[in-house]
């Protein structure tokens, strides 16, 4: 299994993601600099969190125009699984691999805390290790996680079972109070049509050992990477 981890100027969760991938697969991902133009033969692509280009203009906007992006689009279309976390999610929407956009949090503040998430579907390489309907905890740390799609798109996402996680209460209710950032439908993460690309605001890579305060992020890497390991 060969994983690629893309670093943009201003990425700052790239090391955390590499550590998570390595701790689960035993193999470090290859580091790919944004200006490279070939990816080679990879089975998995990770876009890390952080502040690519300082979040200037729009989060992810400038990164989405990097040299490596056409390669990522090609790989994505070929079915190579792609995981975008936080800024990585923002980049995936900017390049159009995922629908919608991430806007400023409704409360305008940056939010860093552990939040409960309801698993909405276990039907994907990424969420296969979770039980649909169960509640997990992961940290968020973002200023622009307010997910927007128009009502038609939102309905499609619902109908096609492409919503991976929603912000919920501790007991799993999806309520306005539990919606930390104003996202439509409390959406915290979405899949593409072929269910091989996941974008999410919460940080599973910061919840993979008990010293982090929990291990709810681990199954995501385990299921994605074990499925791939059999490739």
């Amino acid at each position, binding site marked *: 299994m060969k994983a690629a981890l893309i670093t943009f*100027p*201003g990425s*700052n*969760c790239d*090391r*955390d993601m590499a*550590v*998570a991938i390595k701790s689960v697969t035993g193999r470090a991902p290859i580091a790919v600099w944004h200006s490279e133009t070939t990816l080679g033969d990879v089975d998995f692509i990770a876009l890390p*969190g*952080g*502040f690519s*280009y*300082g*979040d*200037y203009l729009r989060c992810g906007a400038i990164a989405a125009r990097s040299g490596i992006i056409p390669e990522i689009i090609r790989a994505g279309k070929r079915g190579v699984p792609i995981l975008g976390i936080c800024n990585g999610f923002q980049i995936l929407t900017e390049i159009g691999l995922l629908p919608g956009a991430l806007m400023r949090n409704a*409360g*305008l*503040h*940056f*939010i*860093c*805390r552990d939040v409960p998430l309801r698993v909405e579907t276990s039907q994907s390489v990424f969420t296969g290790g979770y039980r649909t309907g169960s509640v997990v905890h992961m*940290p968020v*740390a973002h*200023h622009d996680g307010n997910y927007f799609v128009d009502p038609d798109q939102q309905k499609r996402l619902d109908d096609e079972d492409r919503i991976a996680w929603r912000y919920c209460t501790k007991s799993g209710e999806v309520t306005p109070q539990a919606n930390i950032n104003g996202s439509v439908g409390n959406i915290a993460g979405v899949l593409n049509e072929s269910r091989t690309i996941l974008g999410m605001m919460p*940080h599973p*890579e*910061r919840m993979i050992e008990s*010293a*982090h*305060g929990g291990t709810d992020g681990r199954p995501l890497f385990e299921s994605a990477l074990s499925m791939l390991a059999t490739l």
Partner: protein
Amino acid sequence: MSDVITPAIIQEHGLNEEEYARIERVLGRAPNLLELGIYSVMWSEHCSYKSSRLHLKKLPTKAPWVICGPGENAGVVDIGDGQAAIFKMESHNHPSFIEPYQGAATGVGGILRDVFTMGARPVANMNALRFGAPEHLKTRHLLSGVVAGIGGYGNCVGVPTVGGETDFHPSYNGNILVNAMTVGVAEIDKIFYSAAAGIGNSVVYVGSRTGRDGIHGATMASTEFSEDTEEKRPTVQVGDPFTEKRLIEACLELMSTDAIIAIQDMGAAGLTSSSVEMASKGGVGFALDLSKVPCREDGMQPYEMMLSESQERMLMVLKPGHEAEAQAIFRKWELDFAVIGQITDSGNLSLTFEGDLVADIPVPSLTDDAPIYDRPHVQPSRRAPLSPDQVARPDDYGAALLQLMGGPNLSSRRWIWEQYDHMVMADTIQRPGGDAAVVRVHGTQKALAISTDCTPRYVAADPKEGGKQAVAETWRNLTAVGATPLAITDCLNFGNPERPQIMGQFVGAIEGMAEACHALDYPVVSGNVSLYNETNGTGILPTPAIGGVGLLKNAQRMAGLAFRRTGDRLILIGETKGHLGSSLYMMDCLGREDGTPPPVDLVAERKNGDFVRSQIEAGLLDAVHDLSSGGLAASLCEMALAGNMGARIDLAPLSLPAHAALFGEDQARYLLAVSKDNLAEILALAEKAGIDAVDLGETGGSSIHIADVLDVPLDDLRKAHEGWMPQFMARADL
């Protein structure tokens, strides 16, 4: 080089007549305007420490584990396995008052640079903040801007902001304090210093371009710059964390090669102080061609370039032949890179611009010849100690507890730290809210514990005891998580040193700090002084903020403050005398700020702390918390809230009036939660060690129950404790 230097211009440069005469004497001639500007910066309080230097010398700075004490960009201590922790704290008070977001942001940027300049990867940021009274008109706006600025910068560069402190007091109405601290980790054989060496070697400028940022206002009024005012107006420094992030990565990448001889960030007084410090430490001269300085704006003059405080810039001396290698790295990170001069053997700072020599100053005259003042100082008159019966009891203890825990000074700071990414780098194992933040040393079993503390009302009441207490409190906080305290950095915020009372506070605080550092084997390795924090003749409460760093050899042995098990016994360590003078209870509940502060017994401090640490290491404790502002009551509540579990205690064993037992702030104390099975053993060990240890009660239930005194449901307590700040800030969300 002929400018007419008038008395008005001298005054605008913040120099007095005597100091100007001294410049003429050491230079052997009159300076031109550029040279005057350079002297004014180097001889400023900020760079020369002219009022404080004599007294700073009293601070102990050595220990076997200290690799580099004060004098470099940051202090360096050995943390084993060939690794070092590098840290420093710095103030950005005045800029943050003028423009809270950018002032605080650039404060964080500056302190980060001090740390990565030395070869360390920054791993944690802290911030110590002081604001005016909550009801003061500007407080919300300032707090909201400062917090957003610290978060905006730290979050973007990807260094977790893991802790700090926040106080409110009317003395800061016109002078808020924003002190930022950074801790980094480096390999001991890859630490970089600032002494330039090698005649002929290139002096290299990297980072952002130079603009007209923060050139000190008064000088701009001089005739030289009066035409075309709008364009040439000095401007507030704006932080660019994206550039800083690239600068960190580029510098660390270059540092992993063998190209750098010396490196120095451009902080206050940018190019002037960085070049002078590098030349002075290396005992060499610098010849710089200012035409080569990358500038952001057209038509910038040498005076502006030398005094600009543009952010995100560094100065380096490279080994011969390594320029291309270095340039390639900076190009990769899309940063400016320019060779702007050479090292010379002249001993002078020689500046040329467009082919003309525009300044030529012997370097030692800027540093060694700077004035030093022994300013007159008087100690405040001794206050009368207060006995508990001189301090009113609350009519309703439950209400008093809620008032304290839900008041501006003890309420939860969650509203602040949730705006900081405190988890990026995935090594934060004790998040904000505990005694000390703990971050793992990446890839090892070790962890660093960090805490910033100061109780200004104590320092005001008795500078020396207050200075001692600030140091002791950080030591206690590090101990409470199980860390061995290693060393401190400090940020000494005071009023106008030309007033003997203020100077007395400064001198007293330093004496107290020195005593505590000695007694606790806890030296000062870096620091910063911020004077003249004063508006209309009223100074701030004296605020020597201390940042302590400790080491946990085994991160798994870390202790926390949250109750974890019902039925645990609660042991109070340390002697409780019921000292209420200068307490938070008096300030918040009675509106009084009199009385002596609690005395700090450093022998007891050390003995009690070492005992607690050894019990943590032995794995005998379920929860640990130190006692400080708010006394036993506050610690008990904080442990209960953190664990979402109540407690029942009885104050009878303390044989004191209830308000003194609950709210007294006697030092050197800890509250421990231990399993019933370990109770007897721990009490016996304490007795053997000659340490006061009292069994007060047990954990459990859903309220704080104090026999015959109060019973407050945890839910009410949480509402008060978590509610104050969000409610206070609700109207300042922009």
